[in-house]
């Protein structure tokens, strides 16, 4: 592009030439239409990751995880003998851009499937377009909208459990182990409302009571003034915060409550990607967290977890193997890994070689009933519901102590079930 920057300084002919050259540059790759993209020579997967925007720290790790998984798949001979390529595009954690990128994958890169979206608003915008473009779309998002029937038959969530079942499986443990009077603290937007509504239902079903429900605007950077709303008779504080200010939140919660604190239970989202053994967080000592996959290697660590950590380049504390201050989003990013292997499995069942067998592949996916714990599914075994297109898995409760998280309870898969809310197999493709 150094050419056009020079042209800018040269008016008249140079300017016009620059315009023409620029125009050709902008349009060219599209006109040519990626000649190498012909069916049959490789399987192409579109990966719209959150490289920038509010999801950036997640996106970075999704990309690393997926790259590692892809390397293994290709080393093992690809899928059905075809090499697998991953084409990454940044969606800026922006719903509008998410849709654009989906179109780009479908029409320009001509990929076989798209996977890797995390933030639920991006997913909500992209899912309908995926259905229209008839593009298999694998979410790594936790969103409940899929299982609630809001999307279409092309969308699947084969690895990470949705918010509703995560919370369902935690409600009972909280009320029977920590206390029955619960104060909820959550971000004042849709993700937070999912937590509020599901947790309220789950706690009340166990005979507990929500004594206060504190919504905090997502852009807030200071939290102390919300904290007096925590009633004195609170037995458990339940927190789930996201965004760059979460550390401040936890720190201020600590300063505010001091040593006479109630029990505290948080979703690890509050501290995902954040170093935990720092003085600012010492107050969290003895509090509990939900984790989908334990960040710190546990004494009973599986071979699969060891293999996965090693492949992605994450050490036993959940940090990057090369930079101990670079903390992974360990409780979410496994979904990028497992989703790739779920796609592989569906493609192998259906003998997938190219887009002509797309429907076969999707039906194969719907026919899958679950996955065994393995190198491919290091988070553990899961049940897959072909009707709601949603996976269900074990969930963990971890206690924070000595600067690390230790798993104290693991739920059964059944505890995360709820009645089906939709049946995508009744829909047409």
């Amino acid at each position: 592009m150094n050419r056009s920057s020079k042209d800018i300084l040269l008016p008249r002919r140079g300017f016009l030439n620059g315009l023409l050259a620029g125009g050709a540059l902008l349009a060219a790759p599209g006109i040519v239409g990626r000649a190498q993209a012909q069916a049959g020579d490789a399987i192409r997967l579109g990966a719209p990751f959150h490289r920038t925007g509010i999801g950036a720290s997640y996106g970075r790790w999704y990309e690393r995880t997926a790259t590692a998984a892809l390397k293994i798949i290709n080393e093992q001979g690809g899928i059905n003998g075809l090499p697998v390529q991953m084409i990454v595009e940044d969606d800026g954690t922006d719903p509008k851009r998410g849709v654009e990128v989906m179109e780009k994958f479908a029409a320009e890169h001509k990929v076989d499937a798209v996977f890797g979206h995390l933030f639920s608003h991006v997913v909500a915008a992209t899912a309908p377009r995926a259905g229209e473009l008839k593009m298999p779309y694998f979410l790594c998002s936790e969103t409940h909208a899929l299982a609630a029937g809001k999307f279409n038959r092309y969308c699947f969530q084969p690895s990470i459990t949705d918010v509703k079942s995560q919370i369902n499986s935690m409600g009972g443990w909280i009320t029977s182990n920590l206390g029955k009077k619960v104060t909820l603290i959550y971000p004042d937007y849709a993700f937070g409302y999912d937590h509020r509504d599901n947790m309220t239902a789950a706690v009340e079903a166990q005979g507990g009571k929500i004594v206060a429900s504190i919504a905090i605007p997502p852009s807030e950077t200071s939290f102390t003034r919300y904290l007096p709303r925590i009633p004195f008779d609170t037995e458990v504080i339940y927190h789930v915060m996201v965004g760059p200010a979460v550390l401040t939140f936890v720190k201020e919660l600590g300063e505010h409550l001091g040593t006479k604190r109630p029990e505290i239970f948080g979703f690890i989202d509050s501290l995902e990607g954040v170093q935990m053994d720092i003085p600012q967080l010492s107050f969290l000592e003895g509090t509990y967290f939900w984790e989908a996959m334990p960040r710190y290697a546990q004494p009973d660590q599986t071979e699969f977890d060891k293999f996965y950590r090693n492949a992605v380049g994450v050490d036993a504390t959940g940090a990057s193997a090369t930079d101990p201050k670079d903390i992974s989003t360990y409780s979410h990013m496994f979904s990028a890994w497992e989703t790739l292997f779920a796609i592989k499995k569906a493609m192998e069942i259906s003998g997938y070689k190219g887009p002509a067998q797309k429907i076969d592949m999707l039906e194969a996916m719907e026919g899958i009933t679950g996955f065994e714990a393995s190198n491919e599914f290091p988070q553990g075994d899961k049940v897959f519901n072909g009707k709601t297109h949603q996976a269900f898995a074990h969930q963990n409760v971890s206690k924070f102590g000595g600067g690390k998280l230790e798993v104290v309870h693991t739920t059964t898969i059944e505890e995360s079930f709820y009645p089906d809310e939709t049946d995508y197999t009744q829909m047409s493709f």
Partner: protein
Amino acid sequence: MDIAPYLLLATLEGLVQASVLMLTALGLSLVFGVMRVVNVAHGEFYMLGAVGAWLCATLIPGHPAISFAVALIVAPLIVGLLAALADRAILQRINYNPEATIVSTIGISYIIQQLTLMTFGPDARAVDPPFYYNIRFPWFGYSSYKFFIIGVAVALVATLWLLMKHSKMGLLMRATQYDRETALNFGIPVGRVYSAVFAFGAMMAAVAGVLVVPNSQAHYLMGHDPLLMSFIVVIVGGLGSIPGTIAAAVLIGLSDGLLSVFFSPTLAKIASTLLVALVLVFKPQGLFGKAGRI
């Protein structure tokens, strides 16, 4: 919690917020007052201050207080230099056309943000406070560092006030603000005064960024909110009026704390933003200021 300690806490929080706001808004107001331009990149200078503090904390070993003290001096200086450079390279060339300046500073803010993303990364990074002591009230605990923020902010604002009133630089600034053409005729190097003012405004934001970072964290998108809040303060206080800006910072800092005690915080934000828009429509000189209509 009873209402009295509740209000005490809200007041303390409001004062801390007011202190930070005072610094950022004064920077914005100064630039507007003298140069008659709105600097949309102001929030990014604030962010750069915070990132600078993190950088100092990472590079300088030893007690956090040392690196913090260094950051408090070095970060604003670098940011100021950067701002002066931007003024020379861009704003001067478009002759401080108000609208073109807004567009250009939006451009600058994108550039700063993205460069930070590329180098500093997307994560929020914590910085150790120079000292750590938690004050226990009977009902709640409170970080002593926050009192330090208030102290530094007040000291800085007092210094600024004295400088404006009594130093030669202050005189030049006031002269340029009062009448640009006449100032030129009297041989005041208006171009240099503008660069200095722009740099100084950015430095105020950077100091606020350094002060805030041990309390919250450095993050590449953190400049957005302080920018909007500073806008609000500057407008309510009367664009370009220093006493008005200070009064408005205290008023808005406190009322924001107290309002969100009684209403949903989003609703409080809606109300205050709407109030500002209406102030601009119906009372463009601000609630306190006597500065002229823009």
